[in-house]
C-alpha cells in the first residue's frame, strides 16, 4: 500500500512537470477594460459593463500600493471584478503602476489628495454624479478611509475590504515587526523601497508554508487518471491557477519612499489614524467626518490584517448605516477563494445595490468632458487587458 502511495506521488509529480513543460498561458486581469485617465504612472481603468443598464452609482476600487490590483481579477472563474459586473455595477479601478526613482518623493498627500481625488473626479465626471462608491482593499482601504474623511462630499458609500485602521495590535506579525524597524534608515538608503524587501516580510510570516509546503501542495492536487482527457484539463487548470497566484505574489512594485515612510511611522508605529491625529497635506484626518454608509468586510483568518486592526473602524466613524461582514477565510482567500464568488461578492452586492441608485432626480448633473484637466488624460478604445504587460 505504502509503495503504491509512493508511486502515485511520483506520477503526480511527473504529470505536474509535464504541464509545466507545456508553458501554460497564465494571463491575469483578463476582464475587458479601457483606460479612461492617466496621471504619471497611475492609470484609471473602466471595466466594460456586462449588463445593459448598470446601477447608476459607479464603484471606484482603490487597491494597495503593495502588489498589483489584478488579484481582484486573477482568473476568469474567480474574479471579484467579473462578479461585480455580473451583479450590474459600473466598475473602475486604480492601477498604481510601478514607481521608479522619479517617484521616491511622492507622499501620502500625493496619493490620497492627488491621484485618488483626481480618479474620483474623473469617475464623477463620467457618471455625471456628485458622489460615487469607494471600495478600498487592504492598504487601498486605509487610503479610502483617509479620502472619505477628507472629502466626504464626493463619497456616497464606503466599502472597506481587509483594511487596517487600528495598527497597534499584536495579532499580526507585520504589526509587531513594523514597530521595531528604523523606517528612516530604510527610506534614506533605498529611496524607492524595493518590493522584494516587503515580499521577504510577507514570506517570513509563515516561512515553511509559503516557501515549501505551498509547492509540495501543488503536486498533491495533481490527478493521475491514465488516458482521461478531462483529468488532464483539470491538471492544467490547477497548474495555471497556481502560477497565476505565484505571479501575483512576486509581482511586487517598489514603494515610493516618502509615502512608505509616513505610512509606516504614522500608521504602524504611532497609530495616528484611529486616534484622529494623522495629518495629510496639512489637514488632520477626523474619522468622524465619515458619515456615508459603511460596509467593513474582514477575513476571519487574515494573518496580514488581523480583525483587531479592521474592526475599530465601525466605532470610529459617524455613519448611521454601517455593517460588518466577516468571512471564514484568509487575506487572499477573500478575493480568490471559492467563498469569494459564492458569498463575499454577492453579499457586498446585496448591501450595495439599494445604495447604488439615484437618491433623487436632481442628483444627476450633465457630464462635462473637460472637467478634469489636472493630469494627463487619455481615452482609449476598449481592449482586452493582459496582465503580463507592464
Amino acid at each position: 500500500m505504502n509503495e503504491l502511495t509512493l508511486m502515485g506521488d511520483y506520477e503526480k509529480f511527473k504529470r505536474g512537470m509535464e504541464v509545466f513543460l507545456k508553458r501554460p498561458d497564465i494571463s491575469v486581469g483578463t476582464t475587458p477594460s479601457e483606460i479612461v485617465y492617466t496621471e504619471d504612472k497611475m492609470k484609471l481603468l473602466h471595466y466594460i459593463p456586462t449588463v445593459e443598464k448598470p446601477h447608476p452609482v459607479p464603484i471606484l476600487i482603490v487597491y494597495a500600493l503593495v502588489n498589483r490590483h489584478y488579484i481582484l481579477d486573477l482568473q476568469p472563474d474567480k474574479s471579484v471584478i467579473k462578479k461585480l459586473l455580473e451583479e450590474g455595477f459600473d466598475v473602475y479601478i486604480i492601477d498604481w503602476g510601478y514607481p521608479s526613482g522619479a517617484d521616491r518623493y511622492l507622499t501620502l498627500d500625493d496619493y490620497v489628495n492627488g491621484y485618488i481625488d483626481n480618479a474620483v473626479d474623473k469617475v464623477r465626471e463620467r457618471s455625471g454624479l456628485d458622489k460615487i462608491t469607494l471600495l478600498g482593499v487592504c492598504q487601498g482601504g486605509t487610503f479610502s478611509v483617509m479620502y472619505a474623511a477628507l472629502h466626504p462630499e464626493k463619497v456616497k458609500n464606503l466599502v472597506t475590504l481587509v483594511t487596517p485602521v487600528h495598527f497597534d495590535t499584536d495579532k499580526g506579525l507585520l504589526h509587531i515587526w513594523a514597530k521595531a524597524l528604523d523606517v528612516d534608515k530604510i527610506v534614506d538608503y533605498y529611496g524607492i523601497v524595493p518590493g522584494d524587501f516587503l515580499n521577504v516580510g510577507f514570506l517570513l510570516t509563515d516561512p515553511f508554508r509559503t516557501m515549501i509546503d505551498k509547492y509540495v501542495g501543488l503536486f498533491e492536487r495533481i490527478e493521475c487518471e491514465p488516458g482521461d482527457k478531462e483529468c488532464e484539463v483539470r491538471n492544467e487548470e490547477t497548474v495555471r491557477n497556481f502560477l497565476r497566484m505565484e505571479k501575483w505574489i512576486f509581482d511586487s512594485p517598489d514603494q515610493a519612499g516618502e509615502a512608505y515612510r509616513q505610512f509606516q511611522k504614522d500608521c504602524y508605529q504611532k497609530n495616528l489614524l484611529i486616534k484622529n491625529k494623522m495629518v495629510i497635506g496639512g489637514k488632520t484626518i477626523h474619522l468622524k467626518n465619515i458619515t456615508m454608509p459603511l460596509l467593513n468586510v474582514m477575513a476571519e483568518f487574515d494573518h496580514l490584517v488581523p480583525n483587531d486592526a479592521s474592526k475599530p473602524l465601525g466605532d470610529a466613524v459617524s455613519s448611521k448605516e454601517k455593517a460588518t461582514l466577516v468571512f471564514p477565510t484568509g487575506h487572499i482567500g477573500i478575493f480568490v477563494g471559492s467563498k469569494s464568488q459564492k458569498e463575499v461578492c454577492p453579499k457586498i452586492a446585496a448591501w450595495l445595490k439599494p445604495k447604488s441608485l439615484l437618491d433623487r432626480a436632481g442628483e444627476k448633473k450633465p457630464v462635462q468632458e473637460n472637467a478634469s484637466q489636472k493630469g494627463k488624460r487619455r481615452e482609449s478604445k476598449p481592449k482586452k487587458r493582459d496582465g503580463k504587460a507592464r
Partner: protein
Amino acid sequence: MEKSSSESTFESTQEFFDLWVKTYQANLGRLVEMPAMGPAREKSEKMMMGFSNFVNLYTAWMESNSDLQIVFKEAMQKVREKTATDMKGDLSPESYKDFYKIWMETYSETFHEFLKSGHFANDLGKFMSRLMEFQKLNREVIEENYLKPMNLPTKTEIDEINKELYSLRKTVKKLTSQVSELSKKK
C-alpha cells in the same frame, strides 16, 4: 546533563565570536575609529568607518542567527518527540508523508511562536538598521572614491534631480488645474 555535540559546538562558536568582538572593540576597533589626518582624511576616515560598520552588521547577523539556531533546535527536538509518539518511531521511506506532516506543522508552529516574540522583532530591527548603515556607507565610499573622480553621476545627484522633478511636476499640476478653473469661469 551532558551536552550534545551539536549544542556544545554551537555554544562554542557563540562564545568564540563574543570573545572576538570584545577583543576587536578593545584593539583594532579603537584603531579604525581614530580620527584621520592629512589631505585624504575625509575619505580615509569614511573608509575606516567601514570596518566598524561591517563588524556591527556581522554582530547583528550572528545574534539573529544564534536565536534562530535555538528555535531550529527546539523544533527539531519536538519533531523527534512527535515522531516517536505519533509514528511509533517508524521512519521508513514509505511513511514519509506522515513525517512531512509532523515536520511541517511542528516547524511552522515553533517558528510562529518565535516570530511573534519581541525578541525576533528586536533582532530584525537591529539587523536591518545595521544593514542600512553598512550599505549607505558603502555607497558613499563608492561615490567618493570611484564615481566622482570618474565624473560619473552619483545617487545623491540623481536624487536631487528627482526631487526637483517632483517639485516641478507638482507645480505644473497645480497651475494646470488653476488654468482649467479660470477657463471654466470665462
